[in-house]
């Protein structure tokens, strides 16, 4: 069984980007507890604008809101922000979790709805991947996380 982890890192070494500021995510694939770098996914601002949702015209245009689905659903938190974030969440929607320095409350909730965990930690990428893959392996195999002292 394999799954993907999205990491927000500017240099590939340290987790140093917040979810909001990250321009790209490095995607790792974990198979049987062993992780390897799969690809990089870049996030382009204009993608959201093309979708017709931005702070400028988002809420005034009923059409664009409907297209996005966010405003009409009444999720709140500002159309522009939510729209942008949704697009970014879409970018990592096939991942099991994302790792970044910090993450906002609303986007974390959006990810939760897609069953994506968010870990906000500042540590080396390697360390995070070790710990996360260890955790998921235990969970998947129904093993206790209990530390034997």
């Amino acid at each position, binding site marked *: 069984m394999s799954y993907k982890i999205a990491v927000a890192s500017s240099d590939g070494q340290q987790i140093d980007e917040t979810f909001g500021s990250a321009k790209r995510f490095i995607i790792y694939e974990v198979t049987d507890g062993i992780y390897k770098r799969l690809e990089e996914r870049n996030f382009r601002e204009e993608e959201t604008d093309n979708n017709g949702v931005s702070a400028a015209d988002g809420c005034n245009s009923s059409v664009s809101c409907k297209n996005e689905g966010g405003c009409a659903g009444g999720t709140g938190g500002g159309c522009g922000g939510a729209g942008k974030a949704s697009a970014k969440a879409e970018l990592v929607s096939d991942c099991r979790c994302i790792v970044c320095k910090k993450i906002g409350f609303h986007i974390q909730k959006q990810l939760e709805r897609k069953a994506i965990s968010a870990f906000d930690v500042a540590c080396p990428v390697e360390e*995070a991947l070790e710990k996360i893959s260890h955790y998921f392996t235990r969970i998947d195999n129904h093993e206790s*996380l*209990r530390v034997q002292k």
Partner: protein
Amino acid sequence: MAKLLDKQRYKCALGAMQTVQAITRAIPVLHSGPGCAQKLSDTTGSSGYFSPNIFPCTSINEKDVVFGGVKKLETTIENALKVIDADLYVVLTGCIPEIVGDDTGEVVSRFENAEKPVIYASTAGFKGNNYIGHEQVIDAIIDQYLEKSEEREKGLVNIWADVPYQDLFWLGNIRELEKLISEIGLTPNTIFGYNRGINQINKIPKAEFNLLVSPWVSLSNMKKMEKKLGIPYLHYPTLPIGAFETSKFLREVGKFAGIDQEKVENVINDHENYYYYLIERYADLFLENRVINKQFSVVADAQYALGITKFLANDLGLVPAKQFVVDDTPKQYREAISEEFKKLNYGLEAEAVFETDSYKIHEQIKEHDYHGYPLILGSYYEKELTESLKGNYLNIAWPVQDKVVLDDFYAGYTGGIRLIEDIYTVAVQRFN
């Protein structure tokens, strides 16, 4: 195979947050998931200066499971010290941080030099229930806060009884025990309830002896204090309810403390005179054998199961059926407690059943022939059952749903009278 426990009668060890809450101006700092305090809090008198809704909590989540929650714990303690005006901070750990191996002791040790004392107790749910958790908190106070004292205050006695909040009558009971102890000339010291806090804790090491009134809860604490603080203890296993047991209790305490026998007898005499005056006035009610049930069962923790069984047999002359001890009493104490149930007047003996599964308890009650309708004193879970058996029912143990108790009590002479009032109030309603 996994077992399902039907209608359990205690909480997890983290429920010891209520033990901390019972110490005035002491606050639990929880290292647990969000919602633990909410689930564990009762509405039975737990609001006030500190209440479970404002207990500082690390609210650990998935991230802390993966990466450890010690950093969050440190900032939570740090900020609790800043924003909450308390005298004692007790860090309590829930299951999750204990499972993933957070070193809570190490984090708490960083606050050794804080202005206020910060201690911690390991109260993970898988380590036991809130009776054990209560012991852990007192252990933490002994181990991490108290120091041995060379100085001893003449006549000072620390009194320890059962678990606050879990025991509905905890406040009234301990005050009544204090009152009785002071009447025979000793000075009681307790740490729970109104006006009892850090100052009383500070006095613990100066006591001449510890008095434990409980079948088993806190016995390990007494042993610890004997070893660390050099305080001997008197273990009185039965909560004294009514004249017979209370007089016996006072004699035993008086003997242990070396008090003049005549003084103790005078106190006993005064109380007994009034007690039996009341009993005598209502003798026609008690002797009317249609009013009260022939046999009874108590379904409660060891404290009430034992205390009430002795009271009903010795003072009221009722016949005990099976008695159910539901607090998951640790195995090493069970034999001694069972023996206590056999020490009844009139050659009576009661059988104690240690059982936590309500289904099994209810089946045994249904099977037993009470020679008429039963008298059941238990938790709210026994209400429906007793109704179906057309018996008399009184809610005396947790969970409590149909009774409000502020500072009522069953301990002592007065407590015995209160219990008679409660039982007969139920009994006479049958005919009126």
